[in-house]
């Protein structure tokens, strides 16, 4: 793991990223993305004299508690500087955290863009609305963007670190504006929202096989009701479209830095590669890669492998240890120690095999964070991760 890719000093990463106003952390689920995002926020608050906000999507409860996020609602909560200092981080700027609440963000979107209070109330009360606002692919990503856009536009924070939703490819996050405009502008909707489908029938459209089939499948009542709903929702489009375009511009601009968080396990790593390709497709530059939970190089040392092999398999080793230490050492003890090392060695060797592929992600700073000695679930361990980001490891 000695082969360095990109910058060696992790502090450079924080310096580089701190220049951007929005930092989007992407990556597969289970790589510690939420934790790394939070640590990055802590590190930037320590490095720069600017208010920093960490916008997280679905933090583990203990991490949420550590950040002071008790209740739901996308309202930022400032972390008391004294708490940060106790956790070993001296903040120069303010650090706040917020947790995205997709449902209330959708309600806000409706309130903002509805043509009239009557339309707004009709939408919010519609029985399809719940389904639309939660089930539709990319909806969480879209409102996350809305929230980022608003928070950025408010000028309240110099830097916003965004933990993206744990969607498999994080692709939805990029396509979210397209999807929504696509959704609202679909010709299909125009069809459903037509003055009246009874009118359509009169014009002979009833003969079309799929209109007939849709009726048979779902029952006319449902389609009529959906049609009325769509007419109301359509009005949102006028407001949503320019906002979506502006959000997309913000994502593509140099104000925003995309960062990939991954581990060296084959599956998340493959997703990181896939995501890189997608960013290139969208002409969005990747600014940094954070490799989380890297095992130490010492696990690869040939001498240690030899020692572990002896411990695991040499039938006389327990007796020798007993004599050497002058205490009884039961045979399972050296066996467990040796086997544990060899298992970790196999993992570390597999990680090294992936390191060679890091360069393929792009010519960007790559930072490796070691596997922490315990699960990151409080401000203290988060502070340790932030110090690693700032000062480098070990």
């Amino acid at each position, binding site marked *: 793991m000695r082969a360095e890719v990109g910058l060696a000093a992790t502090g450079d990463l924080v310096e580089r990223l701190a220049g951007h106003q929005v930092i989007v952390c992407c990556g597969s689920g289970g790589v510690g993305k939420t934790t790394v995002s939070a640590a990055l926020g802590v590190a930037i608050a320590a490095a720069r004299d600017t208010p920093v906000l960490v916008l997280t999507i679905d933090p583990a409860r203990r991490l949420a508690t550590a950040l002071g996020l008790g209740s739901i609602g996308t309202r930022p909560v400032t972390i008391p500087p004294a708490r940060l200092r106790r956790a070993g981080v001296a903040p120069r700027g303010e650090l706040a955290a917020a947790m995205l609440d997709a449902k209330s963000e959708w309600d806000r979107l409706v309130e903002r863009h509805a043509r009239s209070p009557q339309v707004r109330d009709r939408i919010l009360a519609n029985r399809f609305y719940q*389904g639309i606002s939660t089930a539709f692919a990319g909806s969480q990503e879209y409102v996350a963007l809305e929230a980022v856009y608003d928070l950025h536009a408010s000028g309240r924070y110099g830097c916003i670190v965004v933990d993206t939703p744990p969607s498999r490819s994080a692709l939805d996050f990029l396509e979210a504006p397209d999807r929504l405009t696509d959704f609202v502008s679909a010709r299909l909707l125009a069809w459903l929202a037509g003055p009246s489908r009874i009118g359509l029938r009169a014009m002979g459209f009833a003969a079309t096989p799929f209109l007939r089939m849709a009726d*048979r*499948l*779902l029952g006319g009542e449902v389609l009529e009701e959906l049609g009325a709903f769509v007419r109301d929702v359509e009005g949102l489009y006028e407001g949503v479209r320019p906002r979506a375009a502006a959000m997309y511009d913000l994502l593509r601009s140099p104000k925003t830095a995309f960062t990939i968080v991954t581990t060296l396990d084959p*599956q998340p790593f493959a997703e990181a590669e896939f995501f890189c390709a997608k960013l290139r497709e969208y002409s969005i530059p990747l600014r940094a890669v954070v490799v989380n939970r890297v095992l130490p190089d*010492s696990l690869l040392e040939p*001498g240690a492998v030899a*020692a572990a092999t002896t411990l695991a398999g040499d039938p006389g080793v327990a007796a020798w240890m007993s004599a*050497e230490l002058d205490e009884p050492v039961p045979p399972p003890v050296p066996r467990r120690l040796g086997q*544990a090392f060899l298992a970790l060695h196999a993992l570390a060797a597999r990680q090294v095999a992936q390191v060679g592929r890091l360069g393929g992600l792009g010519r960007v700073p790559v930072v490796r964070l070691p596997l922490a000695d315990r699960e990151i679930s409080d401000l203290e361990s988060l502070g340790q991760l932030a110090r690693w980001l700032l000062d480098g490891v070990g």
Partner: protein
Amino acid sequence: MADLGRYGARGDVIESLLARRILFVTGKGGTGKTTIAAALALVAAASGRRVLCVDVDAKGDLARAFGAQPMGFEPRLVQTGVSALALLPEESLQEYLRIFFKLPRFARLTPLVRVLDFVAIGVPGTREMLTIGKIAYEERRREGERPAWDVIVVDGAATGHMLPQLQAARSMMDLTRGGMIHSQTEWVDRTLTDPQRTLLAICALPEEMPVVEAIELHDRARAEAHVAVGVCFLNATFPVPVTASDTAVLERLAAAHAPAAAARLGGDVRPVLEGAAIARRLHDDDRRQAGRLRARLGIPVLEVPRQFGTRPGLETTRAVAAALMTSPA
């Protein structure tokens, strides 16, 4: 779930799962649910069952887990005794219309797929119903005198999408009061909510979030979808239980006897000590999370050791299948 004794031997638990007609395997992304679903299918086939394995999100992971080419909508033999299929949206729809409504296959269904796609956005459960509809169809299909499949193992949606899928039939019954879909949903709902026929298996990792999600899904599956949860797989546990006293022995050796140890063991023991510390951390996480799951869920929690040194794909699937049949020491 009285027949799935909490302290029963591992083989009995697996056997009891595979005695069901449909087994949904779910879990947070990255918990290895595809590998576990594929491994369960191999175990079922090894006991002489005819198994169908279904890939719900059709991203090709299940095919890779069997070392097979990408799968289609029609079942295809991928391993001895195991057939597999992938649910593709357009084909699911074609098939659904053909099976349930005796409609001829359309050359191009894209416009209708788009209509239904939209409807699926507005009517929760439409898309899920197509998924569940196909699974339920395969469950009922017979070859001669006997069912076509002894057991169907579904590599299900990730946790967040699993409940809508399981509740699809009920949602559809509530929403589509007049349509033809309505009349098809009742028996699907009956199959899914019968614990003798359908069980859910939840996968977790020994980490905070996957465990929290597993517990939430367990509670909601019972309360909201009325689907019984049969087992929780705690995947990727560390296979060697290193204790604090083990580490202490090695510490004493490294501190006062380093040269002798290096000579006798053939190398430096200090990295082994470092490894022991990491192993302990991982083992402690395993114990804590397994304890939480066992205390909180009234179902068997089976630990599946992390696979070292096996290549992703069939090799790993086989190793996991072997681990499923072997009780830990």
